[in-house]
Structures are given as structure tokens and as C-alpha cells.
């Protein structure tokens, strides 16, 4: 049996007529050519953005030397993978990814529910603040947590010893726990951002119906709210899980001292720490991981297939918050605690440290504004900053538009080829960043010289769009999945073209997600290093390269000044966005 979502979607097939090109519009509309053109266009675009660099890597994994050099085709790369050592490493990696994804998801769901669906005090401010750790470069938080949680002189251990009088050091971030904890700093806000708007766009009457059926709040939450969130939850969880597999900084900083090996450090070593770099092995490993990860995506398709998750309906949909009574102080305290532990502690270190000559040496004679002066007075910084702003604005906007289109076709139509583009849009996320960066380098360098991409800022832009597409598609997919079809259909019937309908109804309803996606991508671009460092050229330096240089030259304090500037921007963006959301909810 088919389901209505798909059947209805079937009807939104034709492309809109644009005024000047109305004859094309008519041609596309009266035949089924329109959707073929649309899908083909996206397939070609995604092929260039993600399949092409991946195919370079595939070549690399099957060839004894990287592209452009003489060598032979063989399977050595793949054969090398199957060692016992790698099996352990893989288990380790998957274990860590699970260990961080599951508690992160629980925390994120809890926070999203508290901040989006209850009347917890100051939830607007808290919502903007608790996501901050996500936007700080990981090296900084790693350093901050190293200072807080090292067993010898870590602040937390010293406080513990001072309070209890014992001389044991219970906290050691250089451990499995530390790796997982550091990852959670990123995955909780990430998951939170991805799901919070799904929580907000929830028709309350669906929950009310469950409570009228006798279900407690908790049960309602589990059987109705969470289930209706499945597209958002599974999408976000998979993104986060994959990130966990591919996370590199946390195991590098906190795992190495404890002897923890994960796949990515393995890949990193095989490229950066071998001579000559073993690209064949690195790419082969990446493809094996990618194949495994794709299984999870298939699982998600299975879970969601044939079900509808439309919570925003054309009939009495009213997004109101739940009155918690006295419990709201409990939820408030919980958020505050979370805020303190994940934001105040590390960010506080960075903030204080940025006013001293050296981190960790808080003596009066070392107080200085030198780091701020150095950053603001640096031509490198401003050049990187303006390039990154340009790339961020353009890149995030284009990526969201592309993601919006792909998600629209894959979620809200029944066109042939929609699964294909959905799958293609996943690809860049499944390839570890360090490897994919090399793929872009090879791909862009080997393009015919007539295509002027290599060595220009456009190479970076294309790489960013490719890297960001999976995220934008996931975000927009889960937002679209919530909208009931009649909202869109009604617009079409009343004369709105497809584009008008997209702009005024679909995006307008999904815009909180759109905005969150945009912010995530914008800051993703600010942070992206692996591809940036391989593709940037003189004149097109980006902020992440500037940060790398500062760090490598021992200017950790300046790096954190820049980190703090980035955070300031996040606060600004989110504050504006949440204010608009709030004004809308208050109007009800």
C-alpha cells in the first residue's frame, strides 16, 4: 500500500513558469520533462561536487600511486586494511562514536524539549548560550580542558582536593572519558541545534490527544513527540555518529597520551606521518568506512519509509509551550548546570587567558591587551577574516539553497531519482575530512586548465558547498517532513507558482531550521581546515589557515581571541534569530 505523503507529493511535479521564460515553463509543465531537467541538473551538480572528488580518491585507493604518477592498479590498499590491529581500532572508533552519540542525543533532546516546549525561565538566553562550545575551534577547548582536567595541576582536581582534603585526582581528561567528553562538547550543541526547531514546530494537539488517552507526560513524550521527531532525530543522530567516527582532534589530543587509537588518527598518520604518504591505504580505509556508514543511512530510510511525520497542519496547529509550574526551576537549574560545565568552564578559561600574556599564568604583571592588539592589528587576520566572511555568506547561502532543493525533491516528491540525489548528498560527510581535502586537491588540480577553478577562491567555495551539503539536506529534510501537504497545495491552487510557494510557504515555515542550518554552515566554513589548507592560495587565505599559523607559532592566546570573536558573532546571529522566533510565538 502506498502512503498519502508520497502520493500527494506526486502532484507537485511541474516546475514553475518564470515570467521571461514562460515558454520554457509551459514546455516543462505540460510534459514530464520538467522534473527530468530538475533532477538531472541536481545530479550533475552533485556529481561534480561530491562524486568527482570521491572518484579521484577511489582511483587513489586502487592505484599504487596518487593520480598523475606512473604506477599500477592493485588492491593493496584494501588488503592492508584487514589486520587485527585495524579491527581493534575500528571497534574502538565505533565504541567511542556510540559512547558520545547516545548520551549527547539524550542530553540534546532533553535540552531541546526544555528550551523549546516548556516555560523554563530565560530559555531564550539559555538557548543562545548553551550552543556556544560548538563554535569554538576544538584545539582551544582541548587546551582549556587540558588545563582544567589534567591529573597533575588541573583546576578541577585542585578544587576537589581543596574541598575534600584528599590528594587523589579523580579527573583525567587524557583518557577514554576525556575523548568522549570533548566530543560531547561539540555533539550536544550540534544535535540540539538540529532538533530544536523540530520540537518547536510540533502541533500540540497531537500530544494533547495522547494525554487525553491517559498517557503520562513521559509516555507521551516517548510515544508521540519523539516518534514524530524521527526524521529530525535519526538524521541528526546519524550526522553526529559519523562525526564521531571521523572526529580527529579529540582522540589526537586526549587519546594519544592514553594510547587510544582510532581510525582517523590512523588515517592521519598514514598521510602525514609516513614517508612517502600512504594515500592508497588512507583512501582505501576511508572507502571501507564509507561503505559501513552507508548501512546506517539505509537503516534510516527503512525506519522512515512509508510513514508520515507531518506535525505542522493546516488545521489548528498551535505551537504553545507547556506550563511546568514549579518544575520549571528544576529544568532551569539543569540548563544552568549544563551551561556552567560546558560553557563557563572552558570558555571562561579562554576569556580570562586572553587577557594574560600566557594561558594559565594569571599573575598581575602578565595582564595584557597585547593579544587583542596583535589580532586586530594583523593584516593577515583581516584578510583571512574578510575572505572567510565572503565565503561564509555566499557558501552558506548557496549550500542551504542547494540542500533545500535536494531535500525538497527527496522528501516531498515522488520523482524518479530522488533517492539518488539524497544518497549523493550524503557522500561528502562520510569521507573523513583530511582525505576528502586531498580529493578536492586532486580533483580541482586535474581539471582541464580552461576551467579556472584551481588556485582561486572558487575552489574553496565549491569545496565548502560540497562539505556542507549533507548537513543542509538533513536539516531541510527534517523540516520539510513536518509540513503537511495541504499548506503547500493551497498556495498552488491559489495561484502561487512553485517558486512563490517555496519562498512564502515552505521556506517561510521551515525558516528556523533554514537559519540554524545557515549558521552551522557559516561557522563550519570558518572552521574548515583540511580542505582549506590544501586549496587556499596566496590572497585567498581563510581564517582557519590564519588560526593554524598562529597556533603553530605558539600564539595560542591570539587563537583564542579569534575564537572569542567568532563566538561573539554566533551570539549575535542566534540572538537575532531567536528574537524573531520569540516574537512570533508571543503573538499567539
Amino acid at each position, binding site marked *: 500500500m502506498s502512503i498519502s505523503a508520497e502520493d500527494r507529493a506526486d502532484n507537485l511535479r511541474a516546475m514553475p513558469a518564470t515570467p521571461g521564460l514562460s515558454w520554457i515553463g509551459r514546455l516543462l509543465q505540460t510534459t514530464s520533462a520538467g522534473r527530468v531537467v530538475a533532477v538531472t541538473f541536481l545530479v550533475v551538480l552533485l556529481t561534480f561536487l561530491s562524486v568527482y572528488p570521491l572518484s579521484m580518491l577511489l582511483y587513489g585507493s586502487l592505484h599504487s600511486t596518487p593520480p598523475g604518477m606512473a604506477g599500477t592498479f592493485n588492491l593493496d590498499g584494501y588488503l592492508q586494511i584487514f589486520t587485527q590491529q585495524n579491527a581493534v581500532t575500528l571497534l574502538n572508533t565505533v565504541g567511542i562514536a556510540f559512547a558520545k552519540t547516545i548520551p549527547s542525543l539524550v542530553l540534546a533532546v532533553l535540552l531541546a524539549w526544555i528550551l523549546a516546549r516548556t516555560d523554563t525561565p530565560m530559555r531564550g538566553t539559555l538557548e543562545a548560550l548553551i550552543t556556544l562550545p560548538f563554535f569554538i575551534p576544538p584545539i582551544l577547548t582541548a587546551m582549556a580542558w587540558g588545563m582544567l582536567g589534567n591529573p597533575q595541576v588541573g583546576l578541577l582536581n585542585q578544587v576537589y582536593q581543596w574541598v575534600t582534603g584528599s590528594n587523589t585526582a579523580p579527573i583525567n581528561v587524557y583518557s577514554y572519558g576525556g575523548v568522549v567528553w570533548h566530543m560531547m562538547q561539540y555533539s550536544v550543541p550540534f544535535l540540539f541545534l538540529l532538533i530544536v526547531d523540530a520540537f518547536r514546530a510540533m502541533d500540540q494537539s497531537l500530544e494533547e490527544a495522547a494525554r487525553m488517552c491517559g498517557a503520562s507526560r513521559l509516555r507521551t513524550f516517548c510515544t508521540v513527540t519523539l516518534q514524530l521527531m524521527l526524521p529530525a532525530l535519526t538524521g541528526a543522530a546519524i550526522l553526529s555518529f559519523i562525526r564521531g567516527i571521523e572526529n580527529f582532534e579529540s582522540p589526537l589530543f586526549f587519546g594519544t597520551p592514553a594510547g587510544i587509537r582510532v581510525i582517523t588518527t590512523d588515517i592521519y598518520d598514514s598521510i602525514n606521518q609516513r614517508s612517502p604518504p600512504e594515500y592508497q591505504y588512507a583512501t582505501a580505509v576511508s572507502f571501507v568506512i564509507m561503505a559501513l556508514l552507508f548501512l546506517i543511512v539505509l537503516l534510516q530510510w527503512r525506519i522512515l519509509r512509508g510513514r508520515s511525520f507531518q506535525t505542522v497542519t493546516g488545521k489548528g496547529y498551535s505551537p504553545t509551550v507547556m506550563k511546568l509550574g514549579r518544575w520549571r526551576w528544576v529544568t532551569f537549574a539543569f540548563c544552568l548546570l549544563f551551561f556552567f560545565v560546558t560553557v563557563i568552564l572552558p570558555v571562561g578559561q579562554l576569556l580570562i587567558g586572553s587577557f594574560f600574556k600566557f594561558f594559565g599564568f594569571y599573575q598581575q604583571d602578565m595582564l595584557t591587551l597585547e593579544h587583542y592588539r596583535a589580532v586586530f592589528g594583523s593584516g593577515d587576520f583581516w584578510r583571512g577574516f574578510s575572505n572567510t566572511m565572503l565565503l561564509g555568506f555566499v557558501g552558506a547561502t548557496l549550500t542551504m539553497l542547494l540542500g533545500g532543493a535536494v531535500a525538497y525533491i527527496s522528501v516531498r516528491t515522488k520523482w524518479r531519482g530522488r533517492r539518488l540525489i539524497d544518497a549523493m548528498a550524503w557522500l561528502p560527510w562520510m569521507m573523513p575530512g583530511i582525505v576528502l581535502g586531498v580529493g578536492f586537491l586532486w580533483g580541482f588540480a586535474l581539471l582541464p586548465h580552461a576551467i579556472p577553478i584551481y588556485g582561486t577562491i572558487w575552489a574553496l567555495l565549491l569545496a565548502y558547498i560540497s562539505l556542507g551539503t549533507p548537513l543542509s539536506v538533513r536539516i531541510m529534510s527534517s523540516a520539510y517532513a513536518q509540513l503537511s501537504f495541504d499548506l503547500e497545495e493551497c498556495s498552488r491552487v491559489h495561484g502561487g507558482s512553485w517558486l512563490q510557494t517555496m519562498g512564502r510557504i515552505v521556506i517561510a515555515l521551515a525558516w528556523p531550521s533554514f537559519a540554524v542550518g545557515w549558521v552551522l554552515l557559516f561557522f563550519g566554513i570558518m572552521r574548515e581546515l583540511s580542505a582549506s589548507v590544501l586549496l587556499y592560495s596566496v590572497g585567498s587565505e581563510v581564517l582557519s589557515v590564519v588560526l593554524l*599559523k598562529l597556533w603553530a607559532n605558539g600564539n595560542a592566546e591570539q587563537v583564542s581571541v579569534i575564537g572569542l570573536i567568532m563566538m561573539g558573532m554566533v551570539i549575535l546571529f542566534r540572538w537575532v534569530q531567536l528574537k524573531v522566533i520569540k516574537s512570533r510565538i508571543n503573538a499567539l
Partner: protein
Amino acid sequence: EDASWDAVVSAAKKEGKVVVYNMTLGAPYFKEVLKSFETKYGISVESLDLRASELAERIRTEQAAGRYLGDAEMISSTMIEEQLKNGDFIQKLPPIPNTANLRPPFKADDHSVPAFVQPMGILINTRLVKDEDVPRSWDDLTSPKWKGKILSDDMRPLGSGNAMFSILQKSMDADFNAKLAEQKPVFSRDMRNDARRVARGEYPIYIPQIFAFASDLKGLPVKIVIPKEGAPYARMDLAVLKNAPHPNAARLFIQHFLSVDSQLIYANAWMLPVVAGAAERADPEAQPFVNAKLIGPATLSERPSMMGLAKKLYP
């Protein structure tokens, strides 16, 4: 000689620009040299900063794709060795007058010329290590009192840790590394931050400490010790890339880099100059470092066996 060099200079000025691929990642002393070059000759320098393996891969890919964008590279000597082995990316080194001024044991090869040297010592926290305990020899590190107290750059993968491991393996007793391994040094992978961890007192000792990286820790309770056996080192070389679009400017740049003035800038940043006449003029503070006794270097050919050994000692 002079006349033909003048021709090079004027050709370089006509080219107007030189693109230098390097792995200094925008270090201030490198930038200072660039600036002096630019002011002296009016030729602009575009410096592309990358990490070692990225730099190598980018050069390889560009050469393979026929995109000849870079002129000169400044990269570690083993990388040069590797490039020569794996492909055809480097031109034969054109004649450069200042190579005559190299001080022993440095000398120019067919393809490259030494640029500067980064020796490594031991970093100690002056608050945690009492004067009488300060290690004066590499062997002192194997004393039981340091068990579990040494922070070290990871010796297994390529990098400073492994370079030190290889060189000490050759120059110290055969079982030195085995004994060191028994001290259970704690590995880490971020040299800059690790030095600060020692300064903050997490560990009393850090190895290997590149001298230059400690020059900006002034004011912190740390000190570099140069063991009596000498300092293992890594050497950076300069070379000209194949099909360089600005070959004369590249030559001129190398010439300038090997001038005493440029080398003095490096010496003052606690690096070992490669030409005669610079060390003597360095700051008093830098003196112990610019004339340090060197041991090494590590060579490409012994690297696999050394990495294998490191993996065995540190499973």
C-alpha cells in the same frame, strides 16, 4: 661572476615576484626575511604556508597536473630526498654566490641548499626540577626519578619525536631508547601546547624541545638544556621547483636567504645559522643555541627501520 649575477638580479626584478612554498606557517622571523627581501629588491614575495605533508602533496599534484605555480620551496632535507626519489619536481640548483659562505658541515647539493637548522634539546620546568637534578646528558633521562614524569612528542610517527629517537639511537648506547621506554614517557602530539603544559607544571620535563619554539616562552618558569652529547636536529633546505615561472627571482631569493643578515634574524630566533659570520653577531641570549653541538641528522633510508623500532618499544 658579478656581471652575470647582476643580470640575474635585473631579470628577477623584471619577473617582479617570487612564490615560495614553505612550512614555516608564517613564523615571524621568516616574514622578516621576506620583508627585507622585498624592500631590498622591490620584488614581491608570495609565501604559501602549509604543513609538511600537505606541502609535499600540493607540489606533487601541481607538478603532475602541469600547474607550475611555485618557484622555490623551503622544506626539510628528508622531504627533498623523498621528492628526488619519487618524482621529478625539483630543478638542479642554479649557481648561487652565497653558497660559498656556508659554514661546515653544511654544503649545497645538486638540487638543494641548507637554509637553517632546528636543533632540539630538553625542556625543564625550573620550579619542579631542582638545580642538582637538571639533566645534563640524555642518559640522565633514564634515571628512575623521572619515571612517568617525562612528556614527549610521540616517537612513533614521523615528526620531531621520531627524529630525536632515530638520532639518539645512532649516537647513544644501543639500549638507550629501550631504557627510555621503560621510563614510560607520556606521548602527546602538539609541541607548542606541550611546552606550555610543562611550564604550567603538569610535567617537569619535555623532550624534544626545538630551541626556537622556546624563544617566545620568555617569562615562564622553563629552561632549555642542551645535553652534553649534543642536540639532534632537523635541517631545512631551499630548492627551485621545475618549470618555475620566476626562476631568477627564486635564485635571488635563495641568495638573499643565505645572506648573513637573513641568517642573523634566524640566529636571534635561536636557530642555527648555516653561513659563517651570523652566529657571532647574534644576541647574547641566543649564543648557547646558535653554536650548539649537533648530532645527527636522520636520513631517509633509515627511517622505516627506526619507525619500526619505535613501534616495538612503544606498543
